[in-house]
């Protein structure tokens, strides 16, 4: 009853306000200020020294990283939308091609066709948003829905300056979508699909529907020692350390920054 009363009162107030405005000739935009709320939030990172202690970056590197970060996200934090948008600029998406100067470091696709290694030559409708979401969740260590500069830099520090084991741990964390300590086939399938999505539709040879699934099977065959359908962190670390390719590729990150 009181709820109805409240609603009636509110409606009445609105009607009276409307007539008042009608008579005096005020526009509806004039009375909007009271509903305005400050929606911008500003986040400042901790001091440079603290970050230097926490991460393995030098002072200069931190400065460069922060400048780039702040330029793109003046409010100091990245939310998921921003993150996806930033990441999508590195991958051809929706027909837009990145400038050739943008990607000096291109991953040769597994299919190995020369024309695809230069992104500007072909515009592929790819979708990197799913993978970006997974990345976001991996960077957002405190799970508050936003990535601050500290999260950003600590993640980068692990990947670029950490030991091989650190890196493998971080990768495992990325794959483990629900953070329960083991990777199931479904999780791996999601990850694989997201990676294949980034390739887009126009690939050589043509992308098959079951390509991710086959890849996942292959992965599990390699990683899952005890064949229990999940890959735990120990299995993962063990199998990766045995694989030469993976170990070598992990060392690529030393020279990124």
């Amino acid at each position, binding site marked *: 009853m009181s709820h109805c009363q409240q609603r009636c009162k509110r409606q009445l107030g609105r009607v009276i306000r409307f007539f008042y405005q009608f008579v005096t000739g005020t526009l509806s935009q004039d009375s909007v200020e009271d509903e305005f709320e400050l929606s911008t939030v500003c986040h400042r990172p901790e001091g440079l020294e603290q970050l230097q202690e926490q991460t393995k970056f030098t002072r*200069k590197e931190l400065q*460069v*990283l922060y*400048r*780039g*970060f702040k*330029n*793109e996200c003046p409010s100091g934090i990245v939310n998921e939308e921003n993150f996806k948008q*930033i*990441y999508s*600029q*590195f991958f051809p998406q929706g027909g837009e*091609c*990145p*400038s*050739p*100067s*943008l990607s*000096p*470091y291109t*991953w*040769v696709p*597994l*299919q*190995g*066709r*020369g*024309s695809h290694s*230069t992104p500007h*030559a072909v515009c592929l409708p790819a979708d990197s948003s799913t*993978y970006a979401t997974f*990345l976001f969740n991996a960077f957002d260590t405190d799970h508050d829905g936003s990535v601050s500069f500290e999260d950003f830099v600590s993640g*980068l520090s692990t*990947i*670029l300056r950490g030991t091989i084991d650190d*890196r*493998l741990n*971080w*990768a495992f964390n*990325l*794959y483990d979508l629900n953070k329960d300590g083991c990777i199931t086939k479904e999780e791996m399938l999601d*990850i*694989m699909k997201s*990676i294949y999505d980034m390739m887009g539709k126009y690939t050589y*040879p043509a992308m098959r529907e079951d*390509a991710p699934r*086959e*890849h996942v099977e*292959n992965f599990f065959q390699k990683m899952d020692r005890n064949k229990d359908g999940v890959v735990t962190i120990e299995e*993962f670390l063990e199998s*990766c350390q045995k694989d030469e*390719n*993976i170990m*070598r*590729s*992990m060392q*690529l*990150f030393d020279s*990124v*920054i």
Partner: protein
Amino acid sequence: MQKLRWNCSDSQQVPAAPPASPPVTRPGLVMAAGVAAWLPFARAAAIGWMPVANCPMPLAPTEKNKRQDELIILNVSGRRFQTWRTTLERYPDTLLGSTEKEFFFNEDTKEYFFDRDPEVFRCILNFYRTGKLHYPRYECISAYDEELAFYGILPEIIGDCCYEEYKDRKRENAERLMDDNDSENNQEGSMPSLSFRQTMWRAFENPHTSTLALVFYYVTGFFIAVSVITNVVETVPCGTVPGNKELPCGERYAVAFFCLDTACVMIFTVEYLLRLFAAPSRYRFIRSVMSIIDVVAIMPYYIGLVMTNNEDVSGAFVTLRVFRVFRIFKFSRHSQGLRILGYTLKSCASELGFLLFSLTMAIIIFATVMFYAEKGSSASKFTSIPASFWYTIVTMTTLGYGDMVPKTIAGKIFGSICSLSGVLVIALPVPVIVSNFSRIYHQNQRADKRRAQKKARLARIRVAKTGSSNAYLHSKRNGLLNEALELPGSTEEEQHMTKGTSLIESQHHHLLHCLEKTTNHEFIDEQLFEQNCMESSMQNYPSSRSPSLSSQAGLGSSCCSRRHKKSAHLPNCSVPATRLRSMQELSTIHIQCSEQPSLTTSRSSLNMKADDGLRPNCKGAQITTAIISIPTPPALTPEGESRAGPGSPGPATNVPNVVKVSAL
């Protein structure tokens, strides 16, 4: 398993296809500013691909000389901007992002110096910083465009916030330039190769081109006025006739009016036929509005002639006479304002249509309401809804004749609402039409003003040009006389001369001098050239001399005597003939092939050839060299004269004509 795409051995067997074409350098259009800064992050994020990959990864590119990011200073006309090098390198297709900026590097101050506008540079640097290019409204559009072109930035990347404004200004500017070009083309002075038909058309379109056109223009205008006035006066009652009947003037003086009408129609017909003949595209001319008005104006007369005084058709005939009033529209050829009004109405057609439509709606609504409101009252004039239309229209336009008034209270209330709403409905579209008219009218005025300004500007440019050419001739005269003298006293004059002329000027003059030497011709100014032409045409007989020449020749002869006292150089001995010529550039040189033997000893080979060729060509032309005015010490004159006298064939032969090379 062999078919699996990720089987590395398979993929390695596939030969890498060569790149289809050289990479298209897309200008960095869609690159966001911070993206390059986030590249390390993207590369780090690739860690997720490593464990699932089955193939070895390619080697990462290494930075050969890993330069720490440094601040670079950009000095733009004194204002220093500083930014990181990587900021500029975000857009490597531009001047600042590529190695092109090294051309502007100043070693002494270790900064990049650009001699450009610092205000615009601010916007351009902001583009590098934020990835968005803005267009400042206070900036001139062409200046901005030039700066963008200089820095190698395409205007298409202007951000959405400023793009509309930029495009509008650019379009305005382009229209203005096109306008200028059009008016230039229209007013090209004398196009001698116009056919008669084209001249006639031009005369019709622009009456100011010739007096005949102007006369024609005024005559037609006068006759249009006469015709309109006769139409009006025809109907005025003109006194009585026996029989107590008031007759309009048209019937009383029928013959006079008929003659007047005939005369007018004759003129109009002739004009129409002439225009039809002269029109570049007759079909288009026939379809044009003005020609239709012309036809409509004169048709009733001819139809009246053709038709007899048949009673049946006389009614129709009378109606046709109404069309004679269209003659007044012919005035629009004579009045710019009328044309603008017509054009405005045409361009506001949609607003007018809206006005009409809304009015019609309101009329119908109110007429219905009034009819039903007044239905009850007795002896009401509102007999039907269409009858109420008249009341509604008169009320809405606030005329209020008073022939129909509502009597019931309801009728009066609705009547007042009707008149209030009428004011609103009519007042709304009118400002749009007014603003359109004002815009078009001012555009026209601006066009006229621009044309006038352009004339003044061209005149100024012409004056400046002749000034500079005079400067060249003046300095040439001074400088070369000094050279020819090789007198010790000439150094002061040289210094004096160099004081007067800057380095650039002297270099420019040297350039022109080289051209003269190359072509063996000389620059002279226009008046001299005219004189030359005139005098050469007067020189028909070898013996005759124009009085001016004789006086000059006398001067020469008097100087010649002086010459003999001095030990002058042999004519042409060490002085190339061209210099001689240039010394005399202010003199009128008349070419005459003389029978004098050529002085072979002291003539340069150039002269010889020319002489041989020239001999047969010009017979009967007299060579006279005379110095008209030389503001130099008289000692010079004998020098000049000496070369003039016996050496006359020499210089003359080098100059078959004194060629006027166009103004500098």
